């Protein structure tokens, strides 16, 4: 046999049970409640850049929005729906997931994954890019 080192074997009944239970114990602390943002009640300017299929919605680029400072990607999409019609964004919205993961979001050049999280927790203006990526699947 080649490279595998000889294992140090410890066999006892149910020795592994504690290991199966360990992850939830390590993760037992619940996340703290998010404190209300100091910027609640204020508004921010958000420039939206739509690419690929989404760019067919409008020739306007960037699309300038004024939204509450707590705005999430879903709020951005709602504002875009108000302006351009709900059908335009139906393909990226989902009741289970919020915004489908195939729609990649970048806020100020950084990837942004949570459609329910404020895109500008510091209350500053920003740019959000949106593009639908459809991967080749298979193999």
């Amino acid at each position, binding site marked *: *046999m*080649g*490279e*595998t080192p000889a*294992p*140090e*074997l*410890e*066999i*006892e*009944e*149910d*020795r*592994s*049970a504690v*290991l*199966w*239970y*360990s*992850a*939830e114990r*390590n*993760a037992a602390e619940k996340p703290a409640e998010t404190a209300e943002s100091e910027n609640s009640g204020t508004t921010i300017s958000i420039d939206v*850049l739509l*690419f*690929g*299929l*989404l*760019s*067919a919605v409008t020739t306007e680029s960037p699309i300038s929005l004024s939204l509450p400072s707590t705005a999430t990607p879903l709020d951005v999409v709602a504002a875009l729906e108000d302006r351009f019609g709900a059908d335009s964004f*139906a*393909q990226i919205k*989902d*009741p*289970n*997931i919020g915004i*489908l*993961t*195939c729609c*990649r979001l*970048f806020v100020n*050049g*950084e*990837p942004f994954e949570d459609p329910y999280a404020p895109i500008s927790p510091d209350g500053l203006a920003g740019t959000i*890019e949106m*593009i*639908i*990526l*459809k*991967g*080749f*699947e*298979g*193999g």
Partner: protein
Amino acid sequence: MNEIKPPRIVERAPEGDEWIPSTCNLCYGTCSILVHKVDGVAVKIEGNPKSTVGKGRLCGKGVSGLMTHYDPNRVRVPMRRTNPEKGIGIDPGWEEISWDEALDEIAGRLKKIRAEDPRKLSIQRTTTVYTMGLPWAAFAPGFGTTNVSEGGGGLHCGNSAHQVSGLLHASWGVLPDFQYCNYALYFGASKGHAAGHNSNSNMGQAADARERGMKMVVIDPMCNFAAAKANEWVPIRVGTDAALALAMCNVLANELGTLDIPYLKAKTNGPYLIGPDGTYVRDIETNEPLVWDTKDSIAKPHNVADSEDMALEGEFEVNGVTCQPSFILLKEHLKKYTPEYAEEITTVPAENIRRLTAEFAKEARIGSTIVIDGVTLPYRPAAAIAFRGLQGHRNATFNFLAVLLLNQLVGAADVVGSCHGFNSAFDGIPETGRMGYQPKAGPDGLMEVGTWMAYDPPYPRPEPKKPEEMGLQDLFVMGMTSPFFNSKEGEELWEKLDMPYRPEMLINYGANIMMSIANKDLIAESLKKLDFIASFDLFMNETSDFVDIILPDRGYLGCYNTRPNSPYIFSHPAGMGDWSWAIQQPVVEPEGKERIFADVLIDLAERADFLSDMNAAFNAVFDLRGENRLQGDKKYSYEEICDADLKNNFGDERGLEFFKKEGVISWPKTPEEVYWRPFTDARVPIYWEWMPELGKKIQAISGPAGLDVPMEYYSALVDYLPCASHECDHDNFDFYTFYYRDTLHTNSFTMENAWLDEAAQLDPYSYNIAMNTQSGLKRGLEDGDLIQLETAKGRKVKGRVHLTQAIHPEGLGIAALCGHWAKGMPVAEGKGIFYNELLELDWENVNPVNLTLDLCSKVKVSRVEEN
């Protein structure tokens, strides 16, 4: 094990003589290679021992890459058809054109379609060079089409295997942990035996494991690549694996009682309470699924109760309803799968089923631990794995789930020696932390993958919608690839389901879709309806009969790829050892007018006015940040983009120039990455609670269109369900055909490779139909006879029979996708059998959950008289 030679040192080579590191692409195994180049000519290809991907080994396909590269039949210039009539065998009347002419015509059509509806463009590419997909992953979304597919998606792809592996192991597929596994059960898989993902590394690991003493039992209709090296081959009737696996689960759960109870409590949804309607009983306040806490004798949300205190059995009153843990429902459900019932379905004797289960249970060593690199871990040196063979049937999803359930019952999941999702967790590149990923808990506490090969992961699932994707995956949301992408039947489904547009243009990259989906007539009908097809190709193949402009591709020895092995869930060795990051780079000068396809795509984006969109897509695909992001509509070469990708991940000092020279860098894995399951607070579903409701939602959309969804495929509990072939009871139709991947060939591509063709001619199986000797003799057949196979629907193929003991008496095994008829592939022409000619592509022959095509058929056999 053979000694591996030390790496070639490029710097010491004499002038005009060098070894250049790159990556093989004769299949998607993407082994790291060294190409020996003398005076500008590539003369030899070897494995690169500096890389863990292949570990210096290379298979027969890999070393034969030279013959593909220098094949005189290669397409070396752009060409346009002059004959407008398209059809099988009709000469297109090719004429050479310039790149400018070709690109202007294609870009003009792209501009028109993009202005109308970009989804009218479909893009298809081959699985053979699957990992060269990144430029396409930017081109398609930059253009705006969501219609992208793999050429052999219906046939070669592990559609269900990927989905179920993702749900249960956070990976693209599963393997035994070869380094520590003592007992491996293979169901319709050849992992470690020269085909598919990470094939060379797996071969080495599997060989070492067998030498170490790992017992290998292979359940397969044919004793070929895996079974021939196994301790035991269990011949099984084609397509019945789920009945066997579920009988084994029954023996485990109800006869032996060999279960890893702590695992089932902590890592599965076995404790979740199920109400009379079959769904989770949920907490009124939080909506989280409830479990029964045995310590406090009350129901608690799953994320509040301690797993140790969760009930797996019993009946409880909660929220005014009677409910039971899902585990006991599964355990009761399994009782119908007695070994005697399974014997009738599978032909595997009941006593063997009990013996194999007892061996598996004993070897799982439930409760044991082991220390690896100072970390104490659960030790379960038994694994049940499966892959494409078992899942290429109408019951694809449940077939795969049934096998993986064996591991779940004994806790043999992603721990030492067990069934592994390969490389499900990765801490990231050490210096920068980039690219890392970890499985984690999602909604209802069920596991979400850390990374995925596509952008829509297997969980959580989106809601089904009226379809707007050609493959219908937005309706059949558990589907990944779809065989309906280019087919006559697909068009009928679009009509029924009110698809708002129709495809008008196809750009193809190397896929030979006339051969790789189903019977050729259906595909030909579909291709004829398209206004325009452009195709990047190496050869004029069967699909070229329908193409308008052919573009010469440089092939894998002429292209860049910064991520041939990333993400690591696709084709990188599992188990302890190293992570390696290799690249692919041009090793030879272009022949004729060949160009790097990625640069051609960038040219097309510029000419069709969507370069800024494609740049944005590249930024998204590569997660480019800071100075490495592509700007506006600036035009970059693909070489520049590759440099940006590498610097983005590895830092400014390790860009493309660094990797061109080094070829690969490696660093060690940790036990916490490899054996991640105990460290991850997430559960996997052994009870698929969402399925009945999902089935109803799909039916609500498809039913009114006349497409009824059989609800037995959408059960919360896994079942054996027969294929259409099992229901065929015509007289004299007494053989089940099946397709298998040949180790000598990749898909329908390598038959043109002269070395591989020669090897295949020497092999009694590659180009012949394998039939059991007794079955053949009983019908008066002799080895080498020309026979005809005919389905009940009248589809026929002919080929020479090879009589062998190494196949189930009812099975007929046909390797790869041979039987080429294109004149542009003269080495391949007329060799072997075109299996797909037997296949129907319709609703009756796909898995109604994820559209996996059933690849078996029932046939009658007759001898063809020869003069």
